[in-house]
């Protein structure tokens, strides 16, 4: 109990420190923090669903794009907080519909479907814009500074990790552990597998939608090719995998170093970025297939065993 309270206080202190940081940094620093926090939120939200269920989802950008587009469409007509709310509701609704229809798919079929989903939504938006509104690009002129975007993202990231922590301590978390270990056994013990998965998918997708909505004002101009960029899905995935998708802090610990590394690479090796990135991905899968956190634990356990044997 005291450990929990201590941990909570540490987390709050850390959060306060992070929220205070923009006042000490220039525009570039804030931009860096903003991008990093965005990916921490995305990777953590992705891992909420994909970590325990082991369903690899490439639909991240589908929801991210829905969020960004909602802001682009409604930013002139509704107050900002209402736009965020609408975005979250749309994300939730899409996640529920999609989840109901597809969570029975397993393995590679689910991966392919989620990848297709992003493309499907992008084409739907394009079709609508072309045939109904007759313009493809939309402008977002909201008086929101980079600092404000950062603070919102920080809140979402903290909220996501808090939700992850709450789930892991609840009956839902227990049910998830069983499902992750063996779905058949989980079914026989009376766990509502489809319901649990659907709930998680919906929570995860709603958070991702919010991240997209919050980040959109930074780009001024939005069109489907910009906000439905599949790279976002892949980066989120690799970050969560690097840290360890079924640990609470895993995705964050993967996102921060990778984001900084990408930034450093693109600043110093703009022409070799893609090659180095490819090598890095291979290295991640090869060296730490279960994530850095799990890798460290494995290494620790091996050392201990060796010590006992000696």
């Amino acid at each position, binding site marked *: 109990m005291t450990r929990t309270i201590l941990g909570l206080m540490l987390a709050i202190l850390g959060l306060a420190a992070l929220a205070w940081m923009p006042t000490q940094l220039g525009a570039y620093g804030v931009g860096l923090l903003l991008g990093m926090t965005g990916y921490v939120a995305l990777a953590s939200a992705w891992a909420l669903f994909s970590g325990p269920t082991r369903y690899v989802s490439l639909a991240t950008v589908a929801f991210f794009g829905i969020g960004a587009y909602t802001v682009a469409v409604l930013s002139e007509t509704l107050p900002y907080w209402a736009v965020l709310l609408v975005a979250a509701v749309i994300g939730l609704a899409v996640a529920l519909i999609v989840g109901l229809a597809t969570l029975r798919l397993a393995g590679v079929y689910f991966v392919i479907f989620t990848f297709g989903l992003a493309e499907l939504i992008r084409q739907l938006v394009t079709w609508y814009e072309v045939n109904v509104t*007759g313009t493809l690009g939309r402008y977002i002129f909201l008086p929101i500074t980079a600092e404000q975007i950062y603070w919102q993202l920080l809140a979402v990231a903290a909220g996501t990790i808090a939700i992850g922590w709450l789930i892991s301590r609840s009956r839902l978390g227990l049910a998830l552990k069983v499902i992750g270990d063996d779905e058949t056994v989980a079914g026989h013990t009376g766990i509502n597998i489809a319901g649990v998965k659907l709930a998680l998918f919906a929570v995860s997708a709603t958070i991702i939608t919010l991240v997209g909505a919050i980040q959109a004002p930074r*780009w001024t101009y939005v*069109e489907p090719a910009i906000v439905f960029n599949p790279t976002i899905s892949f980066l989120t995935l690799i970050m969560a995998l690097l840290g360890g998708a079924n640990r609470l802090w895993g995705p964050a610990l993967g996102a921060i170093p990778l984001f900084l590394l990408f930034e450093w690479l693109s600043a110093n090796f*703009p022409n070799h970025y893609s090659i180095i990135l490819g090598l890095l991905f291979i290295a991640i899968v090869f060296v730490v297939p279960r994530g850095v956190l799990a890798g460290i634990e494995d290494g620790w356990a091996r050392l201990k065993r060796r010590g006992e044997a000696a």
Partner: protein
Amino acid sequence: MTLFSRRSALRAIGLAATLLASVGVAAVSAQDRTSVKIGYAISKTGANAGGAGITTLPNYQLWVHDVNEAGGLELPDGTRLPIEVVEYDDRSASEEVVRAVERLATQDQVDFILPPWGTGFNLAVAPLFDRFGYPQLAVSAVTDKAPEFVERWKKSFWLLGGGHDYTEALAQILNDQKAAGTINNDVAVISVADGFGIDLITAARQSFADGGLNIVYDVTYPVGTTDFTPMLNEAAASGADTFVAFSYPPDTFALTQQAQVAQYNPKVLYMGVGVGFPVYQANNGDKIEGIMSLGGIDPNNVAVMDYRARHTDFIGQAPDWWGSVVTYASLQMLQEAIRRQGLDREAVSQELSTGTFETVLGETKLEDNQLRTLWLGGQWQDGVFVAVAPADREGAVAPRLPKAPWPAQ
């Protein structure tokens, strides 16, 4: 205990290779000013790399080369400083281009920033250029909203016109031909479902209606379409003498091929981006005769032809026939503004806005921060993409219509 298992050795090698690849430090030392730092973020990889690599990047490289060859940028006191380039790849991602410009402005503290490629990316960075006080000479951005943007961002300059400019010029050509009895009143139009295609078709519907032209076929196709035969057949069946495609590469290339195969030879054949690319001429040879598109140049303009020759020499390929020369001219304007006003960005922006410049385009002056003397329509004539619209501008050539039949295969 074995020293190293094969697996751990392999892992170590993989790690070492990754680390090795990432070693290398860019040394920056603070000194007295020995150069002018010019930075840009451009799509060297990803979806936008094709366009950026034709219209924008080669011209940046050529200009830097030209200036440094001449001893550097001239300042008001007559001294010259060489250009030092800071270049980033935005990987065709808007978050990257935004952060790269922030990095250029606050980390690298460059003296001037050249804009990225594309309408969307120019808009994404416009608030940053404005906030950090850099002039933004946006060339590869076709937008009807330029006057609004100038109002919003005082140091932004828009040099390639808007969709309406191009479609009104096209409507004018068609009306002239109709009056001369060359073509009938009907137009078949297809457009690609991306920002460029949609902007132009929306503008065209209005321009054609204003001009009394009748759109008898109007279809928008999704990005990535490869088979245009059904559309070409329907356009042919519609009886229209004019076929317009607001297309993008590679569609433009496919359309050209498939129109030949289908033996579809409308009296006016107008297509979008790609017709002016060097590769278009290289691939299609004399079959391009009579095909029309946006842009064009005045072949009797010595400065432009000289620029084209230098571009071909230095880059290894010819520039395109639309945006390239404007990009280069925008850089010459910047160079001249720096010569007059020095490195004070405020003064340079003011000079760009009000000054008159001698560039490869001739005498160039912006109106309300926009370049309004543009070539809006061109046609391939004897292997040169000559400007035909606006017809009343000096240097314009009369269009040769109806289009010549496709040469025998």
